């Protein structure tokens, strides 16, 4: 990590060197470490140190972007020259208004020294806690324990200059028996919140209890979805259709639905980059402060998120602080999603279910139809039949093909607590409760 002062110096060096009408620079640095295990042994253990500089130059409404990771005077000059050169090749974009102006950005505590300083040996010891549990139960554990610190500085020629640093720790494991598997996971900005023993115990219990799974006919079932499965659905909703460009291009399930009921009354979903329960990021990749944006409120489609470009295309709109790094043609998306909890425990959901299926999490979820918000995916790592308020036997995994708005219209009960689920590919986090949903459609068995 280079620190705020050094990142600001690099940014200013870029801005000084640029002759463009407007210039934006994003500088980030990170230290990322990950200990990976499988077959009850550590098999990959990696560490990465990197810096990234991204320059966006605008000349006569023409935009050029260049990025690199060489923090030398020559490397920085080359980046600025490249961004300006490609901008000159561009055509003017009449819809481009301006880079954003400075605005107050609240400080969010998202960095924990203990996470940043966590050692390879400490990660290995955490992993070994899980591996011992797995070996003792004659099971096989796989998973990863990662710790990361990252910092981001965004500046532009209009005076924006914002800095944020964060840390995140994440552990997950899949523990397998001969014909069964169980899952456990935890994520937090503070590695001290990670209870490897609890994660391991959860996964071991599921692996043992899901042995000898039996098939069940596909069809419509009441399901109890644990938090990972609900977060998966919410993440895809955000990705598919809760950004302004997806609405402007009519590829969103929100298109033409604002003010209308699209889910059940008990569903409220929002994005909030300032909330420390998630993985906070107080500003977006243009340096605009992130607003809390209510996307669905009591079942009604309310808002989508904007960046400065999409806001400029609509009368009376301002960026909500949800841009992705330039350039991108996908538009803004919410990356700090929350779903409002209900007041039920998972035990209450179970007790109230005459017949249904308990789902630990989904696997390989993907979009079938974005405008209809239809997803497909499979259950994984702990799927059980519920009969008369009790889990009666483990099931072979099932494939679902389901409209997610329809599912969220059928949510009978929501969990009273939120769990942070970190995305595997980046530092995006979704906070979601468990949910009991009726008429959830399983369309096949996975063998």
């Amino acid at each position, binding site marked *: 990590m280079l620190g705020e002062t050094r990142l600001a110096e690099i940014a200013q060096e870029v801005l000084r060197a640029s002759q463009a009408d407007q210039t934006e620079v994003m500088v980030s640095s990170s230290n990322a470490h*990950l200990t990976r295990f499988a077959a009850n042994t550590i098999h990959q253990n990696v560490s990465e140190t990197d810096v990234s500089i991204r320059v966006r130059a605008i000349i006569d409404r023409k935009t050029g972007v260049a990025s690199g990771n060489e923090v030398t005077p020559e490397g920085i000059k080359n980046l600025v020259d490249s961004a300006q050169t490609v901008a000159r090749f561009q055509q003017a974009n009449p819809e481009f208004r301006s880079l954003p102006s400075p605005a107050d950005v609240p400080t969010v505590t998202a960095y924990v020294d203990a996470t940043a300083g966590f050692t390879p040996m400490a990660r290995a010891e955490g992993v070994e806690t899980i591996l011992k549990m797995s070996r003792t139960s004659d099971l096989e554990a796989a998973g990863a324990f990662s710790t990361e610190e990252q910092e981001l500085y965004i500046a532009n020629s209009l005076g924006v200059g914002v800095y944020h640093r964060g840390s995140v720790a994440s552990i997950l494991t899949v523990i397998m028996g001969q014909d069964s598997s169980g899952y456990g996971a935890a994520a937090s900005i503070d590695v001290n919140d990670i209870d490897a023993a609890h994660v391991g115990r959860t996964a071991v219990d599921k692996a043992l209890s899901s042995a000898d799974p039996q098939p069940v006919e596909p069809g419509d079932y009441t399901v109890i979805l644990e938090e990972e499965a609900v977060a998966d659905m919410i993440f895809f909703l955000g990705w598919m259709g809760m950004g302004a460009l997806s609405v402007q291009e009519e590829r969103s399930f929100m298109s033409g639905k604002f003010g209308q009921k699209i889910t059940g009354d008990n569903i409220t979903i929002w994005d909030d980059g300032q909330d420390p329960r998630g993985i906070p990021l107080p500003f977006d990749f243009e340096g605009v402060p992130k607003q809390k944006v209510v996307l669905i409120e009591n079942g009604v489609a309310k808002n989508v998120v904007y960046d400065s470009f999409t806001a400029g295309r609509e009368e009376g709109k301002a960026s909500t602080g949800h841009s992705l790094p330039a350039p991108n043609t996908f538009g803004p998306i919410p990356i700090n999603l929350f779903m409002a909890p209900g007041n039920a425990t998972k035990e209450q959901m179970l007790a109230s279910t005459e017949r249904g299926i308990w789902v630990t999490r989904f696997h390989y979820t993907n979009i079938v139809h974005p405008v209809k918000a239809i997803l497909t995916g499979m259950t994984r790592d702990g799927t059980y039949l519920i009969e008369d308020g009790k889990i009666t036997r483990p099931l072979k995994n099932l494939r679902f093909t389901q409209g997610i708005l329809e599912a969220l219209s059928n949510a009978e009960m929501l969990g009273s607590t939120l769990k942070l689920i970190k995305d595997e590919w980046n530092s995006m986090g979704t906070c979601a409760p468990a949910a009991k949903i009726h008429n959830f459609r399983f369309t*096949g068995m996975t063998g």
Partner: protein
Amino acid sequence: MREYTDRALNLAQARGATYADIRVVRRQTQDIEVKNGIVQTLSLGGTYGFGVRVVADGSWGFASSNRLEAEEIDRVTALAVAIAKASAISKAADVDLGPAEVHVATYDTPVEKDPFEVSIEEKIDVLLAADKEARAVKGITVAESTMGSQREWKTFASTEGSYIEQVLTETGVGMVVMAAAEGEMQQRSYPNSFGRHQGAAGYEFVERWDLPGSARRIAEEAVALLSAPQCPSGVKTIILDGPQLGLQIHESCGHPVELDRVFGTEAAFAGTSFLTPDKFRSFTYGSDIVNLVSDAVTPTGLGTYGFDDEGVPAQTTDIVKDGQFVGYLTSRETASQLRKIHPDAPERSNAAMRADGWNRIPIIRMNNVSLKPGEWTLDELIADTDDGIYMITNKSWSIDDRRLNFQFGTELAYEIKNGKLGRMLKNATYTGMTPKFWAGCDAICNKDHWHVWGTTNCGKGQPGQVAHTGHGAAPARFRNVQVGVMKD
């Protein structure tokens, strides 16, 4: 460069490593995207750094940095060794890499026209021409075309004595158009979905695919799909076009033969495999016309290179021969592990270890996993089909963690009745179980229809890595496939 690589390798050994390698990688990218008549993206990217991989106390360690400087090499190398020693607290057995691989060589991707030498104006003109053609069709809401080039300079050195320098070049081009009306949205892509089709080649690859010449056709198809009937459900005969079959091969053959998945090392993320070692050379994967090979040598294949990231030379391996499962994609370590179960398995890796840049550890990745061509022309195949669905270009994909159950959707489909193409159909999907599906393969089109399709978005590993893979395929017919799972 040798000064730096020797420094890392010597220090690693001095610190106790029994094996070490270092990769120094510079990656250069250029991306252009035109959307609705406007050049939305014009970006140049670069990244440079090195990664040191070691075996110490019988376990792996890896560390990387963006600063190729003497002091940083020392720090990173020492860290890699310390990490390996920490890993050793839970080891079951020492890493066994099998026979040494010692190669001093160079390799450059054959390139006719250097894509970085072609002017940006010329590239933009191609994309704008395609964009104009597509948006001339009434009803198109989004037209997005892209062109991209990537070049990597890779230096690999190991304590076994290898020193390999490679220059790998890729070029890609593609377009997607969308039409929307009354709550329905349909899309068409060309030449392939996922943004663009890409190959290990120069700018000649772009010229071959003539984006402007196909833009209007796909735009008209997208608009026509809005009012097309829903693809009916039922157990049917289907014909898959090359791009869709390429993805089918990728998901249901390429991934399950990755030997790291088989041994469980991807279990927590990507998953495992139904092709367990007991099935090696004793399992019927598909019908007897199904022949699948893995290679890193097919010209323009996106998985074509000179050496993998363990320094093993590119080669060709039979995966499925006459329907029988006969081969895995291997690394040096997993090849050794397999021989402990099957002593007659190949002694050496078949060069499938690839890393997504300097900052990632190599893992087993597909190179070009391809279905060999058959004898049919596409016209003959359609004429020979009484009742079926012809499915074109992937739109949706999902497959289970063992790579058995899959569900795919395609952008476009046509009914086949009495040997002729009939109505256009929308939202076609099909689902099945891998061995049963491939057992139903009864006809494959010939080499004139065969092409290596590039997949640029294959995700695997923790931290995540994206690989570029190739899949040779010609249209093929499959019997008794479950088509359609969606509610009307």
